[in-house]
């Protein structure tokens, strides 16, 4: 079985079918670029993986993680656990404006830690101490991640004081903090000025070098060509074509793909 | 400060009250007053009926009268300053038990008898409506014909309102206020040509102190009217108060109070009140 395995994933909004049964798999450490014109279903595909949309049919499984079957009913807590296996970086960063860079990264972590501590330690001083210890630990972890994305000097800055590229790098650090099995990107550079896309793509490339498994929806053909191990082309709710960058860009089999990559 | 504190505390009370809001039986008025130990008189503030002396104590003929009646009945009298136009609402909702404030036995300004709204007790004091103008206008406005078309101010829902409607020739010329005092204020400020208020009030307040610029204008010669106390329709309190009034006449208390406020001449003799 592959690291991530998706079978027959279908999604429709009202009467509009957006995904017509997607079969897809990827291996650990693989970087897959998802390309295709707007409305092709690639963003919906990504959102279904993160359970921001619930698929109508199909299964999703991660080797070391979970098995999701759209036919079953899951509790919000179960959905939440599954979600954490898949990190998500948004097109518009979605940093929390009232928190500085460091807080953006560690507060979600701290909330998880608190939840666990509260479940195991009932009351009193021991609980408070455990929470404090977790806070120190989470802050340190967050700081390390900011160092990784090259923003150690911006830890105290608020999102409104950061450039778009810097904000997106904080968002990447924030997603990494959850230690997801797979990191998803939804057009991570589309909201950026051209001169700022480079720094974000560089970070993604560095993550690849460290062996991260990543699924990147992108319009950056250069990036897809140079960084991705595999490219999949979405059109009209199906995977029209997939293969290595050389195959998809150099020798597309489908006329739709050919028209798109030209 | 004490008042504020007690208000804060009673917030807690109302919450519990809202919860415990049970159908608290329909006791008769008297039964409830006996249980609570007090009745509440709705008043407005003016001399000589109910007003504050220089030390801030509520005094006046009606104030002492009500206290004397309460004493006869073995309960306490409380006084609540109300907006006069709301008097029937206050009475009907039970917020007050009696309208006791130089309340004229007679008609509302729309010609409806006040007996439609309240049960009157025995009457106790003579009154008439009284024309008040600026002191320097008394000579000029010496005929009621000259009042036609002028601007008048009165207390809303008072006996004077009907008189003012007649004198000015149209209710459009009459502006109403929440109390007689407020109406006099308007007159002082020059926003109107005359006011129609109770003679008893005018006699006690006009031409002196803060109202020195005003004067009673005798161009208007009113019919005499009487004061009585207004009770809720069908209330058993009416009878109780009447009994007490009889006793206060008999033992001379009422005469004493009247003398104290220079109202001896207006007090209706015991055998003439109805």
């Amino acid at each position: 079985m592959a690291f991530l395995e998706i079978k027959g994933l279908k999604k429709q909004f009202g009467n509009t079918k957006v995904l017509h049964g997607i079969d897809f798999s990827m291996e650990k450490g693989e970087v897959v670029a998802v390309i295709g014109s707007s409305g092709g279903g690639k963003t919906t595909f990504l959102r279904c993986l993160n359970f921001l949309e619930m698929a109508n049919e199909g299964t999703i499984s991660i080797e070391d993680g979970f098995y999701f079957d759209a036919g079953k009913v899951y509790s919000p807590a179960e959905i939440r656990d599954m979600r954490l296996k898949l990190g998500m970086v948004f097109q518009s960063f979605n940093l929390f404006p009232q928190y500085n860079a460091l807080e953006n990264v560690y507060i979600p972590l701290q909330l998880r830690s608190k939840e666990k501590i509260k479940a195991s330690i009932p009351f009193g001083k021991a609980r408070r101490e455990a929470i404090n210890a977790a806070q120190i630990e989470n802050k340190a972890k967050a700081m390390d991640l900011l160092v990784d994305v090259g923003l150690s000097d911006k830890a105290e800055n608020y999102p409104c004081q950061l450039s778009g590229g810097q904000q997106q790098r904080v968002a990447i650090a924030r997603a990494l903090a959850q230690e997801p099995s797979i990191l998803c990107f939804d057009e991570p550079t589309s909201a950026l000025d051209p001169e700022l896309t480079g720094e974000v793509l560089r970070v993604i490339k560095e993550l690849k070098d460290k062996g991260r498994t990543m699924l990147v929806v992108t319009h950056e053909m250069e990036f897809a060509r140079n960084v991705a191990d595999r490219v999949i082309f979405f059109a009209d709710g199906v995977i029209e074509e997939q293969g290595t960058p050389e195959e998809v860009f150099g020798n597309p089999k489908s006329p739709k793909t050919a028209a798109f990559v030209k | 400060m004490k008042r504020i504190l007690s208000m804060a505390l009673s917030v807690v009370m109302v919450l519990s009250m809202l919860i415990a809001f049970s159908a608290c039986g329909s006791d008769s008025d008297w039964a409830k007053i006996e249980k609570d130990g007090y009745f509440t008189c709705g008043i407005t503030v003016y001399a000589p009926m109910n007003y504050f002396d220089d030390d801030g104590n509520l005094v006046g003929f009606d104030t002492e009268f009500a206290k004397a009646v309460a004493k006869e009945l073995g309960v306490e009298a409380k006084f609540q300053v109300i907006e006069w136009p709301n008097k029937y609402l206050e009475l009907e909702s039970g917020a007050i038990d009696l309208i006791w404030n130089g309340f004229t036995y007679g008609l509302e300004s729309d010609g409806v008898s006040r007996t439609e709204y309240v049960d009157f007790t025995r009457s106790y004091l003579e009154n008439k409506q009284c024309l008040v103008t600026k002191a320097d206008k008394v000579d000029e406005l010496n005929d009621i014909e000259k009042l036609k078309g002028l601007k008048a101010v009165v207390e809303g829902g008072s006996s004077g309102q009907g008189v003012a409607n007649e004198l000015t020739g149209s209710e459009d010329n009459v502006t109403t206020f929440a109390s007689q005092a407020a109406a006099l204020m308007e007159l002082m400020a020059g926003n109107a040509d005359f006011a129609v208020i109770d003679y008893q009030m005018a006699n006690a307040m006009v031409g002196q102190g803060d109202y020195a610029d005003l004067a009673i204008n005798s161009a208007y010669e009113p019919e005499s009217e009487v004061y009585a106390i207004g009770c809720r329709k069908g209330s058993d309190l009416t009878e109780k108060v009447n009994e007490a009034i009889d006793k206060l006449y008999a033992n001379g208390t009422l005469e004493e109070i009247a003398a104290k406020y220079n109202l001896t001449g207006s007090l209706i003799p015991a055998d003439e009140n109805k």
Partner: protein
Amino acid sequence: MDLGTITLKLLDGFGVTCLLFLLTLVLSLPLGLIISFGSMSKFKPLSLTVRTFVWIIRGTPLMLQLFVVFYVPGMLFDVRLFSGDNGRFLAALVAFVINYACYFSEIFRGGIQSIPRGQYEAAQVLGMTSKETFFNVILMQVVKRILAPISNEVITLVKDTSLARVIAVAEIFFINEMDFLSRGLVWPLFYIAVFFLIFVGALTLFFGWCEKKLSYYKV
């Protein structure tokens, strides 16, 4: 009557005004938040009921609501809901709290609905529960967005308290009419204006300070 006596009397009335203001604020803000959740509920019957209620309260004069709260229970049901010395104050408080909670609820609703979806989604993918999302992510952004309209309402409330006089609550204007205006003293009215100016001035400074405190981030 000397200035001291008048000041003391007016302060007494202003105490009632301030208490009515403070209690209304303290009770109507959380109630308003609850009502806003009701009006945003996905359960149609609830949101429809709540919205109708808000429409009625916002659509009728506060003065009428004061009358209804204080007089109607006694007139129709023979129930004295607000008896006792502080009954009038409590009735006014109930009317004010309900009225202001409805206004606040609409401000909250606007504020909450103006927060971009992305904020909720980001919180979701980071594993926050909806409660955590609201209190850790959304609330502070809402607060910043609604600070200006809320401060407007709050300042209006200071002055609206004087409406309580229609059911004879002994707030500052009622005291003034009872004790001074009835004797022909007009100038205390202007003196009262000073009380209000100082109070509203203090509130303005407070909200300015809040705004400054929250200026470190943009939403």
